[in-house]
């Protein structure tokens, strides 16, 4: 039961990062062009999907609370400021999608809301991961820091890195879904973004080495982990190849592989800790009565249904964006 809910939680968070990641990335790239046709193409590439993507965040949130309430209470309160700012960013991003289409005079507000909301949400998510990796002060399962403990050089760097990562994901999604100018512009963005991500990852790596974070020891203890970065290197090569040969679907696929590698590296190096290095999954799991209650309805029936539905809706909207049929 504990393993089941850990997997569900991990899968929900991964799906959120991948799916809403490209939404947020497109949101950031949106700010880099002034061309209305580009913008409309970019919006059309994500507008039918963003709301469904965001539900994975809520799913991850309630699963965390229901199945691992000590972690929910610890992390969400320790990350008071970033969580509030992330939610505000997501609200602005979300309504900007809807109101921009209907607005004329106020369109500028929604453009700004869309870009700033996306950047803020992405940065805060990265910063939270960074603060978690660096390690939070925890005494007896309770947070022992203050409201601003999350904010430090390492977490800020992680925030920037995730922004760049999401932008990369977004650019490769635009390549996959758009044609003509919007696609070519996105192609031009992929390579620089990729190098920014790689450089930031290297900086983060040395920063972690320098600070002697506990996470590094686990890597030396488990040398087989180094297979994952190897796969990541292959993915980077795949992205560059896809860009050079203009294979529209390849970059996105390879960026997804890259993200999964990064996610797996974090997950494997933390395992079995859910809050490194103070709470393990078993310590954090709720009582059996709670997990079983969730399992027999939500876990066994609704969750698989949600997965099927997600696959279905991506099937409906596959292929290139056609602006003539869309409403943007």
């Amino acid at each position, binding site marked *: 039961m504990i393993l089941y809910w850990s997997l569900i939680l991990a899968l929900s968070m991964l799906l959120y990062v991948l799916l809403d990641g490209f939404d947020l990335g497109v949101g950031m790239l949106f700010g880099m062009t002034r061309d209305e046709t580009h913008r409309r193409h970019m919006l*059309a590439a994500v*507008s*039918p*999907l*963003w*709301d*469904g993507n*965001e*539900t994975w*965040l*809520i*799913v991850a*949130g*309630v*699963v965390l*609370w*229901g199945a691992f*309430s*000590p972690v*929910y*209470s*610890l*992390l*969400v*309160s320790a990350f*008071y*400021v970033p*969580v*509030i*700012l992330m*939610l*505000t960013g997501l*609200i*602005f991003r*979300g*309504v900007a999608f*809807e*109101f921009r289409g*209907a607005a004329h005079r*106020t369109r500028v507000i929604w453009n700004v809301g869309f870009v700033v909301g996306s950047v803020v949400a992405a940065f805060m998510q990265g910063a939270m991961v960074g603060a978690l990796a660096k390690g939070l002060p925890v005494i007896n399962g*309770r*947070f022992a820091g203050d*409201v601003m403990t999350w904010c430090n050089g390492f977490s800020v760097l992680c925030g920037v890195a995730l922004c760049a990562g999401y932008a990369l994901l977004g650019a490769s999604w635009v390549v996959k879904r758009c044609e003509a100018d919007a696609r070519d512009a996105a192609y031009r963005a992929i390579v620089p973004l990729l190098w920014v991500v790689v450089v930031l990852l290297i900086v983060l790596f040395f920063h972690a080495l320098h600070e002697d974070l506990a996470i590094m020891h686990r890597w030396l203890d488990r040398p087989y982990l180094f297979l994952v970065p190897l796969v990541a290197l292959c993915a980077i090569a795949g992205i560059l190849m896809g860009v050079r040969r203009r294979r529209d679907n390849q970059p996105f696929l390879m960026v997804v592989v890259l993200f999964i590698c990064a996610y797996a590296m974090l997950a494997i190096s933390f395992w079995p800790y859910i809050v490194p290095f103070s709470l393990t999954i078993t310590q954090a799991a*709720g*009582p059996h*009565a*709670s997990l079983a209650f*969730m399992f027999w*309805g*939500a876990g066994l029936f*609704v969750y698989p*249904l*949600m997965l099927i*539905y997600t696959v279905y*809706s991506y099937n*409906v*909207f596959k292929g290139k964006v056609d602006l003539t*049929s*869309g*409403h943007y």
Partner: protein
Amino acid sequence: MNTTALMLSRLQFAFTVSFHIIFPSFTIGLAAWLTVLDALYLITRRPVYHRVFDFWLKIFGVAFGMGVVSGIVLAFEFGTNWSELSRVSGPIQGPLLSYETFTAFMLEASFFGVLLFGRNRVKPGLYLFSVAMVALGTTLSAFWIMVNNSWMQYPVGYTIQNGVYVPDDWAKIIFSPVVWVRFPHMLFAAYVTGAFCVAATGAWYMLRGMCHAEGRVMLRMGLFLAAILVPVQLLFGHLVGDYVHRYQPVKFAAIEARWHDEQPASEVLLAWPDAAHEKNDYPISVPVLGSLIGSMSLDSKEVGLTDFPRSERPPIVIPFFAFRVMVGCGLIMLLVAWGGTLLSLKERPLQRRALLWTVFLCFPLPFIATLTGWFTAEVGRQPWTVYGLLRTADAVTPFLTPRAAAGSLVVFCATYVFIFAFGTYYIYKLLKGGPAEAPLHTPPTALPNRPLSAATDLPSTVK
């Protein structure tokens, strides 16, 4: 724990949850009304029902979207501001709220899509089934929220292990007697809200001399449904009062502003409660009525606030007045619904304009009644978050600083006011435009999990 941070957290939760409840109480009622409309269309085949249905489906989409957006914040606020509550009651409240989310998703995902796409693609019977499923989904969503809140009002089916509330009997939690009076009370509140909004919109069209056929259907059906629903709602309100009387005597005494034990007890209709001196200023009261309301007898003894130490009493003024505003709204709605139904049956032209104005101006009443009802329930539960188990002061995030709490409060207030001003304006525009003659066009990019998009492709109605 910092008292300023505690107060700010309470204000923030009150603000965000009050803002949120406006939308679900509207959409739950609306979904039920859409089901009725579609069933009527299937039976009578009158096109007017079809047009009214398509029109309200758009409004439903926008209001539903607003409810989802404002609800996301709540799911995280339990953790940000109330970390102790989410830690100790997580094993019970977490699963209940995750069921709420999963139920809401099921509704969004599978059946709302059919509503948007399916009019010409599925058989009418299946379409009606989908509408009913959406209504069921919103109802179930409300159900889980009410189970959760009722557990906080009257905790049952738990044991305490290491200071954490661990569920030991889910059946007791879900089938708690308190759930089964408070859930219908909320459900009927939503139905009444839907009925009054529909009737008021119909009255508005008739006053402006537009959409005559649709306006008539909305006005008549809305009033007729309200005429049946409001008395039922008053009955459930009375039953909720019974549970408060039995399980939360101090809240009951606060609502009644009864300071001392009385036998037989009088009923304070209006007064200014003075908590410092434990008395009421300028009271208007009716003897014996208090016993009759509290225990259905003429000579029962009713407990007063002074039986409880000050540290266990809720604030008096808010529950006292909020309750009276709620009951007042309920009685006015009863009058309007019954009077309006009678008059609209007789169809006297002279009195009609006054009736239309009255119905039109009544549309805020169900919202006010719902909000004040919740104020009574939640403020009356103080100083407890989980009644009798966890004090609000112990539930708040211990290290939260006033600066962070004030900052988030300002951010949320600004965001909500800004965004929901646009949302409400949007709904107003849709309502003002009225039901289009043409049937709903289904945008090819509208996906069920994007309810707001139901309305965006009709430039003819959004001017």
